[in-house]
């Protein structure tokens, strides 16, 4: 497997508190990586740095050889649109859009006929088993269904990698397990790289590799 992401000595500080300190790691294509650590250990910050949602104070991050740490805000937005899918703990769906429109959201700024856009969203919805819920709004869905919508949205641009921040953290155990199975299937069947922050030991144990963070630093790999 070749390297997709390379992180070199990355640091991030918030108000004098070091959230991520001198972290270095590599991630290979098709890898399923779990990041573990206690609350405040820097998991979310590290994911945000990898997605370009936060800018590193020091160090560099290369994505497929391209240095995302020197990209400006617009370039980072395009980077996320074209290469990355993000799944949040709290789903982050837009309440005024229905399922198919929420899934299609990353395509809105792309010049594309609306029909084609919605067709792609429907395919993505089908991949996560939501074909029967296309016209529903987020408040009409269960937590598990909302997270499936978020995963479908993350898949719509055929990204190289999905970053998931506690994707099961807001779900019951059974639903959480189903969501993880879905992510694992995507990794297995489509060779999709997945980086996932999680507290759940059993989910982490099912990953290819686990990184543990403590006080913003990698404690063991």
């Amino acid at each position, binding site marked *: 497997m070749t390297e997709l992401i390379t992180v070199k000595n990355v640091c991030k500080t918030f108000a004098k508190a070091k959230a991520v300190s001198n972290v270095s790691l590599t991630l290979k294509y098709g890898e399923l990586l779990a990041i573990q650590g206690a609350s405040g250990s820097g998991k979310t910050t590290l994911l*945000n740095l990898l*997605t370009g*949602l*936060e800018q590193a104070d020091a160090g560099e991050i290369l994505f497929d050889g391209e240095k995302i740490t020197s990209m400006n*805000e*617009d370039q980072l*937005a*395009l980077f*996320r*649109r*074209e290469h990355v899918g*993000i799944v*949040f703990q709290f789903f*982050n*769906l*837009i309440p*005024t*859009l229905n399922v198919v*429109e929420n899934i299609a*959201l*990353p395509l*809105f*700024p792309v010049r594309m006929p*609306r029909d084609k856009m919605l067709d792609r969203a429907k395919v993505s919805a089908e991949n996560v088993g939501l074909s029967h819920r296309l016209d529903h709004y987020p408040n009409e869905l269960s937590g598990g269904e909302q997270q499936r919508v978020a995963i479908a*949205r993350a898949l719509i*641009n055929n990204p190289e990698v999905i970053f998931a921040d506690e994707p099961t953290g807001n779900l019951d155990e059974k639903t959480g397990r189903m969501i993880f199975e879905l992510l694992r299937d995507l990794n297995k069947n489509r060779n999709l790289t997945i980086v996932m922050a999680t507290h759940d030991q059993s989910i982490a144990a099912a990953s290819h590799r686990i990184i543990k963070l403590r006080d913003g630093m990698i404690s063991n790999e």
Partner: protein
Amino acid sequence: MFQYALKEMRKRRNKYALNVGAIILLVVLLITLNSLSLAYKDVAVLPFKTINSTIIVQRNGNVPENMTGVVLSCSSAPIGADYLSRVSAVDGVKDVSSGLLLWVFDHDNFKRVFGLNWTDGFGRGIESQITIGSAPQTNGEALVDKAYADQYGLAAKGHVIVAGADFLISGIVESSGKNVIPADVYVALASAQMLAYNSPNLQATEKFNQTDVNIIFVDVDQTNLNQVSQRLNNIFNVGQSTGGNTPTGQVIGSYSIYTPTSFESQISSVFKLSDQLTLILSLIVPIGAILIIANSSGHTLLERRREFGIMKAVGFRNRDIQRVVFSETLLQMLIGYVAGLIISFIGIAILARTTVSVNVPWEVGGYPHFLVPDPNLAGTVLTYLLPITFQVKYALLSGAVVVAIGLLTTMILARRLNGLKAMEVLKYD
């Protein structure tokens, strides 16, 4: 993006209703106020249209000691015939008509007698109001106003006696409420001049030559109105004052020049608007609309911070989010503008059915106040349908203001959105 904006508006219609309402109000007020203002200027012109003129000139004179026999309408004085040629020579004057308005106190009744040339502009105006019979062909014929004819049982082909002179009634006219200078009997100018010349009471009050008149009608292009009016002032108001005043306060011997502008203050209506008020409202209303929309949009933006944060997280650039905001603003402006146009159109159609009264200054052609129970009834009141029409130029003007507000609102919101950090709103909101 546009369909997203449409959906967003549908889902949050209560939030956007205020903005759309502000735009509707803006468009309706801008179009209606300016159209009203224009209509009132047009109302002031209407009394002149029936007499095919734009300016009326009269000279202020003495009041007769006794109201008996034939006198000049109070308190006018004779104007020499030589003035007509001087007025005709003024640049911008299209046509000049003249007339002689007399008050005739016969032993059995009072009548206003107007002497005119049937072939000039004013004469043609009166001729067009004939409802029965035809225009007089000789100096011994007259037209009688319908109201007067009905009161005294007169009819076409009958006779009317004026200061002992017998006139054959060639026709009946309906001039009441239409003419700025109404009369009961219309005769040839030469006949009226003969009546005035031979009246001892009139000659004792003002020296009257046989070719004199007491009213001049001047027809000019609206564009030349002020220029011609100024030149007429130069012709007429030189060394004419004798020092005394008429009962209504005019300087005896001076000339009064009436234009549509003189009548603007005589228009009575609750809808009357001054230019200044229209201008002030036209400035205040857009500012108010900007404040309402900016404030309301600001609140909406605050509520939707998380939404915009999600958009940034999934790959929207600042300019993409600006497009979202612009689409929504554009849609609101478009809905508000179209609705405003429709409401303005309906409002103007309703306003066009209302009437407006013009009180003609009493000196121009009033009735003897001592013959009516209430002195206020001595003046002439003309009533017209408000000549208001939907003005495309104001629709375009309001459109331009709406576009400007839309751009300004988008710019303000875009500035605020540019500083939005996706993770900050997703983390804390």
